[in-house]
C-alpha cells in the first residue's frame, strides 16, 4: 500500500513546473506531507524520492537538516504550539511563559500531550518582537501572550475538533 494518497502525490507533482530541477520540490513536498500526515515516515520519504527522481537518502538528508519535520515513529499533535525564546521575548517573560506551558501541558518541548492534541516547541526568534512574549500557533503569530492568555488558548486548542 502506498504511504501517500494519489491526491497528495498530485499536489507534490503540481510543484514540478515551477523549478528547473526536480530536487527543488523537496521542501514543498516535505511540507505537504508533514502538514497532512503530521509526520514524514520512511515510506513517505521513499515515495517523495520516487516522484522527484532522487535517492531516498537525499530527501532524508535535506529533511533532517532542518530538524523541523517529525520523522518516522514520531508524530505532531493536532496543533503545533511554539513559544519563542528569542532575546526580545526572553526580556519580556518568554522563558517564564515556556516553563508555564510545559507545566500546564505536562510535556517538555518537542513532546506531544498524551491526548495527541498539542505538540509544544520552543522557537528561535519568530519575528513577532512587537508582541513579545509571542507564540506561534502552527504558523500564525499570537502576540503579547500572558500566562492567562496562554491558558485560555491551550484550553481552546485541547477542545478543537
Amino acid at each position, binding site marked *: 500500500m502506498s504511504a501517500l494518497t494519489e491526491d497528495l502525490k498530485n499536489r507534490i507533482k503540481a510543484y514540478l513546473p515551477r523549478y528547473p530541477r526536480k530536487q527543488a520540490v523537496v521542501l514543498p513536498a516535505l511540507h505537504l506531507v508533514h502538514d497532512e500526515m503530521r509526520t514524514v515516515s520512511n515510506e513517505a520519504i521513499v515515495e517523495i524520492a520516487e516522484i522527484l527522481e532522487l535517492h531516498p537518502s537525499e530527501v532524508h538528508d535535506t529533511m533532517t537538516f*532542518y530538524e523541523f519535520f517529525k520523522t518516522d515513529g514520531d508524530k505532531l499533535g493536532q496543533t503545533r504550539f511554539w513559544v519563542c525564546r528569542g*532575546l526580545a521575548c526572553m526580556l519580556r517573560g518568554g522563558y517564564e511563559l515556556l516553563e508555564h506551558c510545559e507545566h500546564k501541558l505536562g510535556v517538555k518541548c518537542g513532546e506531544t500531550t498524551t491526548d495527541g492534541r498539542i505538540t509544544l516547541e520552543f522557537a*528561535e*526568534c519568530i519575528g*513577532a*518582537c*512587537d508582541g*513579545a512574549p509571542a507564540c506561534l500557533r502552527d*504558523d500564525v503569530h499570537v502576540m503579547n501572550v500572558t500566562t492567562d492568555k496562554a491558558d485560555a488558548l491551550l484550553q481552546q486548542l485541547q477542545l478543537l475538533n
Partner: protein
Amino acid sequence: MAFEPTLLARTSKPNSGKLDGYRADGGYAVFEKTLKDKQPLDVTTQVKDSGLRGRGGAGFPTGLKWTFLPKDHPGPIYLCINADESEPCTYNNRILMEKDPHQVLEGIMLSSYAIRSQCAYYYIRYEYGDAYRSTQAAIDECYAAGLLGKNILGSGFNLDIYMHRGAGAYICGEETGLIESLEGKRAWPRIKPPFPAIEGAFRKPTIVNNVETMACVTQILRRGNDWFKSLGVPPDPKNPRDAGSYGPKLYTIAGHVNDPKCVELPMGVTIRELVEKHGGGVWKGRKAKSVNPGGLSMGFADCNLPLKGEDGKTEYDIPLDFNGPGKIGCLGLGTAAITVIDDQTSMVDVLHNVCQFFSHESCGQCTPCREGTGWMLKITDRLRRGQGRREDLDVLVDVADRIGIMPGTTICGLADGAGWPVKTAIRKFRREFEDAIQSGSKSTYAKSLQLAGAH
C-alpha cells in the same frame, strides 16, 4: 518639517494588501510606465545612481550588485527574494509583507525587468504564515490582472513569481544557504567565489535581494533619485569607500521599551531618539543599560559609555546609519532592529541567550563555527549557573575572535555574527561578568543545559 513615511504609508489602511487599494494609491503605474518607456539598463542605472544599499544587513549597493551579472547572458537569470528574516529581534520585512505585499511585488517586477529575469523565487521563512498567505494572495491577484505571467501588458516581458517556504533555519538567510535550500538541499552556504551573480540558483546567474530593498526600488522608481537622496546621510568625505546611507529605513524597536514597534525614518536616527521618542521610553521607569543596535549579530552598545571627544554623549547617541554602529565597535547597521536591555537585567543572561541562538542555528558545515558556538554556549551557561571560572571571559573572547570570515576560518558570516555580541558584551560589561564569577551568583533562569540541535 515632519517626516512622511513612504514605505509604511499604506500599512494602516483597511485592506492595505489588496490590489484595487494599491492601484487606487498609484500602485503599478510606474511598473507599467517602465515596461513602456524604459530599457532594463535604465532601471539598473537609476537604482545604482540612487545610492540604495541593501536592507538585509550587509548594506551592499543594490544597483552595483545587479551589474555583476554577466552581460548578454542567454538566461535564465534568477531573482531570489530573501524573506527569511530570522535575525533575532527583527520584524520590519514581516510588516511590509503582511500589510503591503504589492509594494514589494512591484519592486520585484521592476528589479526582474532590470536584470532580465523571468523567474523570481520568493523565499520566506516558515514562521511567517500570515505574510506568506497575504503575499501569495497578492501574487494571485497579479496573475489574474495580467501583471504577472507571459507577455505582461503586451510588452513581451514575461515574469513568474513563486513563493518557497523555509523550514525554520536561520542559515537560509545567508544568500548561498538560501540558494542551496531552494534547490532542495541542506542549507549549507557555498564557498565564494563564484558569487551568485555569476553562478547562483540552479547554477545560473542569480541576484538575491531583501524584501525592504524591493520596496525601496518601487519608491525610487516612483519618486526619483532626488527624493531618495534627500533622506539619510551623504557619504563621509573623509572616507573614500563610504557609499553613504541614503533613503528611508524601517527601524524595529524591541525589548524593554513601553511601545515596541516598527517605524520608518530617514537613515541616521540615533538610538536615543528611537527609544525615547518612538519606542515610548524604557519600560517601568527604568534606564537603558545596553542596546543591541541591529540584530544580535551586531553586538552591544553600552548606554552609559561616553563617546570620546563628544561632550556628554554616550553610545546611546550614535546614529543608526551604515557607519554609526561601527564607530562603537559593533559589526554594522545590520537589520536596524534595536533591542533595549534595561538596567535590572543581567548581561550574563542576555549573552547566554545570544550564544544559545547561534549554537542552535550554526549549520554545522564549518568546524570552528559548529564547535565554537557550542563552546561559547557551554561557557555562558556555566557563568549563569554561578560556576564561572576566572579564565572564562578570556576564553570566550578568544573563541569569538577565531571563528568567522574575518579570521578566515569559516565559509559564511554566521560565526562572525556569533562572535561579535560575545566580544562587545565582555569588553563593555567586563566588570559585571567578573562580579558574577566572583560572587558565584546564580541566574534565575539557570537550569541544566538544554541540548542544542545542529541546524
